[in-house]
């Protein structure tokens, strides 16, 4: 038996605790993913055989644990899928669930290129079969001051990067969301620098916590949560974790990001959750967990300091916010 007490101050690595029924559920998960993909494809062909995923909770949600490693309960599927910042669709968080339902997520390719030895375009099915999908229960802290606990399914970004072999010149990773104003209506607005781009330093990208998420509660991601594949960087503000990824590029220099372009003095490249560094306009010292009335004190690195603090040694985080 593993002695879990020694992990007390650590988030337990979810791969170590994934119970058997969830493990077995991975097969079911991949099967559902394939079926949903096919359904969307059929719907696109004009048949009525498949209805788009509904924002109400499916009956067979699965998760390996009802809490995160700190003992806080998971947010419900309903909360997670009905409160989404997705400016490609709407500035309102509660209408994204409806307006994003028709996003065509199959076929879907993710192009991985740039400073790599083996550039490759992965079909979504290949990502699902080639990389072991596991459950990761992470806190998500939005820069607006609210947070959730979410049971993602997915695989570490590091596994994908290892497969394409970054060259020694590669120092940053740049990500890009789908650009398709026909499907994502707000992308027609010139007030925003579309497509949504994000970036990580290579060592951040290689950290074991950094996840490419493909599912939620054991089900494929719904469109409003970033289907079919999104980034999840749990120690950074939510806007770093971009949705509907189509491009991953290894680059030599720090890339421009969506929010550093919109307001460079307000949104830094690093965007680490940090209660001591206020947003230029408001304090970041506290947050409200969705479903709770009161506020909680925000944790440094969103509570993942043991895993990631070493990435930022000798860096002044009030300068590199």
């Amino acid at each position, binding site marked *: 038996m593993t002695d879990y007490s020694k992990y007390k101050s650590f988030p337990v690595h979810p791969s170590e605790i994934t119970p058997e029924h969830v493990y077995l559920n991975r097969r079911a998960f991949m099967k559902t993913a394939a079926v949903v993909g096919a359904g969307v494809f059929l719907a696109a062909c004009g048949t009525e055989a498949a209805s788009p995923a509904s924002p109400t909770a499916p009956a067979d949600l699965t998760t390996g644990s009802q809490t995160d490693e700190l003992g806080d309960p998971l947010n419900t599927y309903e909360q997670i899928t009905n409160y989404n910042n997705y400016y490609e669709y709407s500035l309102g*968080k509660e209408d994204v669930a409806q307006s994003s339902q028709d996003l065509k997520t199959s076929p879907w390719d993710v192009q991985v290129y740039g400073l790599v030895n083996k550039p490759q375009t992965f079909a979504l099915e290949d990502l699902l079969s080639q990389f072991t999908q596991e459950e990761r229960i992470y806190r998500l802290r939005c820069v607006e001051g*609210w947070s959730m606990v979410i049971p993602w399914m997915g695989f570490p970004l590091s596994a994908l990067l290892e497969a394409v072999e970054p060259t020694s010149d590669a120092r940053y990773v740049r990500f890009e969301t789908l650009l398709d104003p026909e499907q994502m209506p707000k992308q027609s607005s010139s007030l925003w620098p579309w497509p949504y781009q994000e970036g990580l330093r290579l060592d951040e990208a290689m950290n074991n916590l950094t996840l490419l998420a493909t599912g939620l509660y054991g089900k494929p991601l719904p469109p409003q949560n970033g289907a079919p594949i999104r980034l999840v960087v749990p120690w950074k503000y939510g806007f770093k974790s971009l949705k509907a990824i189509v491009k991953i590029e290894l680059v030599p220099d720090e890339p421009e990001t969506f929010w550093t372009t*919109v*307001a460079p003095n*307000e949104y830094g490249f690093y965007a680490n959750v940090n209660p001591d560094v206020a947003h230029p*306009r*408001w304090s970041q010292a506290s947050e409200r967990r*969705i479903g709770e009335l009161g*506020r909680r004190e925000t944790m440094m690195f969103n509570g993942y300091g043991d895993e990631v603090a070493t990435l930022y040694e000798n860096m002044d985080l009030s300068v590199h916010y």
Partner: protein
Amino acid sequence: MKRKNKWLEPAGLLRIAAHTLAWGLLAWLVWSFFDDPINPIQATIQRSGYYALVFLVLSLTATPLNTWFGFRPALKVRRTLGLFAFMFAGVHFLTFSVIDYGLDWNLLRGAIFEKPYILLGLTALTILLALAITSFKWWMKSMGKNWQRLHRLVYLAAPLVVIHYSWSIKGDVLRLQGDILEPLAFGLVVVLLLISRLPPIRRTAVGLRNRLALKMIQPKTRSTPPIEKPHP
């Protein structure tokens, strides 16, 4: 002359409209607070703040509607609109401080004083509070000239609220990037409403209107048009 029902006069209708709108919005706000399953506190704060701004702008349109277009009934709802602006600002502040922050002084102190964003809103609220308290006839009489001086502070409160609002959105108004259309629109309207009160501009408007009225009246009667008193 037959005496008309005073509620069917323009001023009465306006007053009914203002009350219906304000109390309807308040009821809807309370109802959706308990109906919204996800983050009712954030939604209530944002919406009550928005309504306060809308009523503040509406109250500022009353005087120019009279001086520029001779629409006197607007003056009859000016105070009502201002009081509703204060009501929603109060709901906004109480939701923020009591429900959201649970009156946790340590958290509140950081939130209010760390950055000017909330401090600006609080300043505007203090102004609206002072104006609301002194909005009754008794104060108007006993304060004399100072009453008008005090109530001119609304010309400061309105821009403060617009800046507070534009700081709450994601994006950058100065760089014209992001979620800026509404803050810019409100800013423009407030600037125009304030400009319309500048004495030379107001005098020009009143002069134009009186000459226009004279022209329209002249063919029939020879009576002089009513001269409008300037209003704050």
